[in-house]
């Protein structure tokens, strides 16, 4: 029996809004797919564009960033910066031959547990539709740790 493809998705969620929504979803027993692995960040603006690429490089089938609603960011403009960085990486994906929709950004208010669950379900289905990360099984993942470089240690 062939195993259906189960997407592995990383979600960077900001502490003040979207992670709170995730917590709330959990408390009120709202289910969302286990495919989504949540990573807590203090603000969506903490997400460096390179995290999105490294996630894909290490085998994630999809990555998304969730931040506060626009105008409601705890750090004022972190979510706006995140939006631009996600857009930048999406454009780069196009040139790399990878589907842009594997990387997305959403805005979720702290109280909006249903939206958190909806986004998680929607991304899981979207990535299932797109299929596995096209580089899985091709070559080794990530920077070569035995050859890779920390500052001055080449």
């Amino acid at each position, binding site marked *: 029996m062939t195993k259906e493809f189960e997407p592995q998705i990383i979600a960077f969620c900001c502490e003040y809004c979207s992670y709170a929504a995730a917590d709330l979803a959990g408390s009120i027993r709202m289910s969302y797919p286990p495919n989504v692995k949540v990573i807590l960040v203090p603000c969506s603006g903490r997400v*460096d*564009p*390179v995290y999105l*690429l*490294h996630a*894909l*490089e290490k085998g994630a089938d999809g990555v998304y960033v969730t931040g506060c609603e626009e105008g409601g960011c705890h750090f004022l403009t972190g979510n706006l910066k995140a939006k631009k960085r996600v857009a930048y990486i999406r454009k*780069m994906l196009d*040139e*790399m*031959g*990878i589907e842009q929709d594997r990387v997305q950004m959403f805005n979720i208010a702290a109280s909006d547990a249903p939206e958190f669950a909806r986004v998680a379900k929607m991304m899981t289905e979207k990535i299932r539709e797109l299929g596995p990360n*096209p*580089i899985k099984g*091709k*070559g*080794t993942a990530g*920077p*070569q740790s035995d*050859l*890779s*470089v920390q*500052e001055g240690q*080449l």
Partner: protein
Amino acid sequence: MIIGEHKPIRELLAMIDGYNNILMVGCKGCVTVCNAGGSKEVAILAAALRIARRKQDKPVTIDEFTLDRQCEPEFISWLEDPVEKNKYDAIVSLACSIGPQYIAEAFETMVALPGLNTSFMGGTVEHGIWEEYCAACGSCVIHNFGGLCPITRCAKGLLNGPCGGSVDGRCEINEDIDCVWELIYRRMQKLGQVHRLEESIGAKDWSTSLSGGPRRIIREDLTV
């Protein structure tokens, strides 16, 4: 500072085609300040190229390193050991074009690739926006123009500007750019020096610029 932008991914992929063991070197100087080739940008581009090559079924190793500056032979020499040890077949430099040229000179049998398009000398307008301010003409005369450079910032390099295409104080070729001659005029008004604009400036001696050939400066008091 020197300002540039990384080459489009497609162009970088074409450039590294055929090479499988690459060192990508950033620079902590100008290109870090203009977010084009510092250690962060090296990380992003190296990851992007590795992913793209894996998709093409042509995986590539890209090691990442950032030098203090690449316009210094001594700093470039720090690459000698890793190059020797790891046997790279190409080095991609994300510094301004001086970097890959210095790398090519230091490593005669190493392929040195420019990952950046070096664009101009300029400064920060605001975070994420940089503008050209100096064309390195070799004989600075901005004091005659209220401290602004018409050679760089006037599209036609007029020393007796403005041209008749300066509409509503905007440059003929791009209405997003101020006509620098309007800016000069306003500055001269503030300085009370508008009458100086009535003096005709003679033809420029371009021999001190790149037009006169590649330049070199020697400071006898500093050479060993």
